[in-house]
C-alpha cells in the first residue's frame, strides 16, 4: 500500500510529470538513459495504482450516494400507493428482460462490490419495497464483457463525464486502438451518449447496439483484464453528473505521448536496441504495440 501522505502532489500530477520526463528524455544529449526511464516508469506505475484506487473509491461512494438520493426523491414524488407499481415498472424499463440484458443496470456497480450495496442502498425512509428489487437487479452479476463493451470507458474516467442525455459536458477523449493502432478522438461523449442516454432505449434493444459496439469497443476489453473493478455506466436518470470530472490531463501533448508509449519500452530504447532488434529508429511499430505491457495500456487511454 503506497503511502501518499508525504507527497505534495497528487497522483495525477505525478503521472503528467513522469510522462513529461519520458518525453524530454527523447531529445536529451547522449541518448535515452535506460536507468532513469525505468525508474520514472516505476513512479508512473505507482501513481497510476493510487489514482485508480482513488477513482474507484470515489465512484463507489458516488454510486451509493446517487442510489440513496434517487430512491429518496422517488419516494417523495410518488404516491405511496403507486410506489410498488412504479418501482416495478421502473425496474422493468430499466432493464427490459432482466435475464437477457441485465448488464446495464448491473453495470452500475463494480463487480467486486456486489455484496455490499445491499446494505448500503437501504435508505432510512420507508421505501422498503422497491429497494430489494433494485438491489437485486443491481446485484446481478452481468456478463462482464457485455456491459463493458457498452459503456466502459477505459480508465481513467476523467476525460469523459457520464452526463445525462442533453448534457454535452463530455470532453474529448483520445484513444489508441490497440488492434488497428489508430489514434481516434471521441467527441463530446458521442459514443457514451448513445448507450447511456436513455436507459430504456438502451435496455430495450440492449442486445443489438451493445453487441455492435462490442466490436468498436473491443479494444477496451483488453484494457480491463487486469483490473478487477470496471467503470460502471451511469444511469441517465441521475440529474447531476456527480462524476466530478477531475481536471483533465494536459491533452495538448497526449497524442505525442501516446505515440511514445504506444511503442512500449522497446520504443523508448529502440535507439539503443541491438541491431537485430532495431526498429529502424521508428516508434510505434505494430509489433511493439501488440505486446504492450499492461501498465502502459492505461496511459494510452488518457
Amino acid at each position, binding site marked *: *500500500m*503506497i*503511502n*501518499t501522505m*508525504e*507527497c*505534495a*502532489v497528487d*497522483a495525477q500530477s*505525478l503521472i503528467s*510529470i513522469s510522462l513529461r*520526463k519520458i518525453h524530454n528524455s527523447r531529445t536529451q*544529449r*547522449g*541518448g535515452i*538513459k*535506460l*536507468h*532513469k526511464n*525505468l*525508474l520514472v516508469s*516505476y*513512479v508512473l506505475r*505507482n*501513481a497510476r495504482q*493510487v489514482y485508480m484506487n482513488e477513482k474507484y473509491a470515489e465512484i463507489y461512494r458516488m454510486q451509493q450516494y446517487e442510489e440513496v438520493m434517487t430512491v429518496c426523491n422517488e419516494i417523495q414524488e410518488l404516491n405511496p400507493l403507486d410506489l410498488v407499481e412504479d418501482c416495478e415498472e421502473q425496474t422493468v424499463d430499466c432493464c427490459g428482460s432482466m435475464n437477457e440484458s441485465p448488464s446495464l443496470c448491473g453495470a452500475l456497480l463494480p463487480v467486486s462490490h456486489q455484496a455490499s450495496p445491499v446494505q448500503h442502498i437501504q435508505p432510512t425512509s420507508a421505501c422498503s419495497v422497491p429497494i430489494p428489487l433494485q438491489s437485486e437487479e443491481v446485484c446481478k452479476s452481468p456478463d462482464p464483457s457485455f456491459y463493458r463493451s457498452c459503456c466502459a470507458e477505459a480508465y481513467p474516467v476523467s476525460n469523459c463525464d457520464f452526463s445525462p442525455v442533453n448534457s454535452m459536458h463530455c470532453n474529448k477523449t483520445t484513444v489508441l486502438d490497440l488492434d488497428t493502432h489508430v489514434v481516434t478522438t471521441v467527441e463530446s461523449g458521442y459514443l457514451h451518449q448513445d448507450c447511456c442516454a436513455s436507459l430504456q432505449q438502451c435496455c430495450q434493444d440492449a442486445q443489438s447496439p451493445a453487441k455492435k459496439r462490442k466490436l468498436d469497443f473491443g479494444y477496451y476489453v483488453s484494457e480491463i483484464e487486469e483490473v478487477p473493478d470496471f467503470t460502471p455506466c451511469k444511469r441517465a436518470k441521475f440529474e447531476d453528473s456527480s462524476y466530478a470530472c477531475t481536471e483533465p490531463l494536459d491533452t495538448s501533448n497526449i497524442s505525442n505521448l501516446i505515440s511514445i508509449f504506444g511503442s*512500449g*519500452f*522497446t520504443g523508448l*530504447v529502440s*535507439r*539503443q*536496441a*541491438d*541491431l537485430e*532488434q*532495431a526498429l529502424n*529508429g521508428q516508434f510505434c511499430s505494430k509489433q*511493439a504495440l501488440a*505486446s*504492450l*505491457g499492461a501498465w502502459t495500456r492505461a496511459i494510452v487511454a488518457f
Partner: protein
Amino acid sequence: MEEESDCRKINNSFLRDHNYATEADIISTVEFNSTGELLATGDKGGRVVVFQREQESKNQPHRRGEYNVYSTFQSHEPEFDYLKSLEIEEKINKIRWLPQQNAAYFLLSTNDKTVKLWKISERDKRPEGYNLKDEDGRIRDPGTITTLRVPVLRPMDLMVEATPRRVFSNAHTYHINSISVNSDYETFMSTDDLRINLWNLEITNRSFNIVDIKPTNMEELTEVITAAEFHPHQCNTFVYSSSKGSIRLCDMRASALCDNHSKFFEEPEDPSNRSFFSEIISSISDVKFSHSGRYLMTRDYLTVKVWDLNMESKPLETYQVHDYLRSKLCSLYENDCIFDKFECVWNGSDSVIMTGSYNNFFRMFDRNTKRDVTLEASRENSKPRAILKPRKVCVGGKRRKDEISVDSLDFSKKILHTAWHPYENIIAVAATNNLYIFQDKVN
C-alpha cells in the same frame, strides 16, 4: 577528524573569478592511484586532469605534499553514431588507475561507449644533433651534409605527455557506468545497464560477456545494473549492484556466463515506508569493496550500507546520509535531483566511510565510534589551511545559529564524487567544477 583545507581549482583560466561554471568543467569522476601519489579527475568535457603530490621538502615542512597539476589531456571527444542517430557524450564516467609497473603511469578512462587506456609518461631529455634535420626541425638539403654525427640526449624541461595506448570500443549497446581493473592486472571489466564485459588489457578487438540481464522482451525489463567491481584480492570474484537495491556476487570459475550469482545481498523493503518513489530511492548508485575485501559498501539515495560478504540477508551497518530529504522526495523528483548518483569511499583502514550530499556537504561515518560528521566544501566557508567546521542541518523546530534548515539547502551544489588516499588521511572532494583537497592537520 580535524582537517586542513587546501583548495585547487582545475580551470586556471580567466574563469577563476567568475561564479558560474561551464558545463564542460563539471567534474564527473575523481580517483587516486594505488600509491596516492597521483590524483586524476575527469570532467563532462572529456578532459582528464592529473595531479601529482609534491615531494615533501624540508624547507617547508608545513606544506606537506600538496597536489599540483601534472598533466592535462583530452581523453574522449563527442561522437556521433550515424546508425542510430545518437550523439555519444564525451563525459568521462569513470577513471581507474592501473598499478605502476615501470616509470610510466597507466589509467583507464571511459565515456558512455568507449574505454581507453592512457599512458602518462615524463620526458626530460631530448635528442639533439640530427643529421637530416636542423635544430628547428627543417629538413636539411642532403647536399649540404658533409659529416655524420651521433645525436646526443640533452636535458630539457620536464614534459608530461599522455598517449592513448589502447581503445576498447564497440562492445556496449547501453551506457557504460563502471570499469574495474582486476587484481590479476591483466584483465578489466566494463559494465553497462544490462551487460558486463571482460577484457584483456592487451587485446582491444575482443571482449567476453560475463553478465547479461537483458530480457528477451524488453517490455519485461525490471532492473538494470548500476555498478560493478572486482574483488580487491580474489581475481575470480566480482559484484554488481542493481537498480532494485540488490547486490550479486559472482564467481567466474563457476561458469563462463555469470548470470547466476553465488551470493545475493538484499535487504527486504519495509512495507510501511512505501511511497511513490520507493523504487528510485532503493536503486544503488555505487558499490565498493573494502580494502580488506571482507566488506561491501553500497550507496542508495538516502543511505550508505556496509555489508559483510558472509551475510546476505541484511547489511551489517546502515548509515543515514540525509534522511531529512525523505519528506522532500516529491520536489526532488520534479527537479530530477532524486536521480543523482552519489558515490561512496572507504578510507585506507576501512574504519571510516565517506559520501557526498547537497549544499556541498559531505559526510563521514566512523564505523568504530559510530560518530558521524558533516563537512562543507566551499571557498566562502573555509579559508585555505583553516580547519573545517562541522555543519548541521536543522530538521525541524528551532534552528540554532550555525544550523542550516532543510529548505535553504542548495540542491544544485551536489557532491557526487569523492576519493580517499589509499594510506593517508587525504581526501579529494569534487563540488561541481571545483576540486577540494583536504588533509589531516599536522601538529
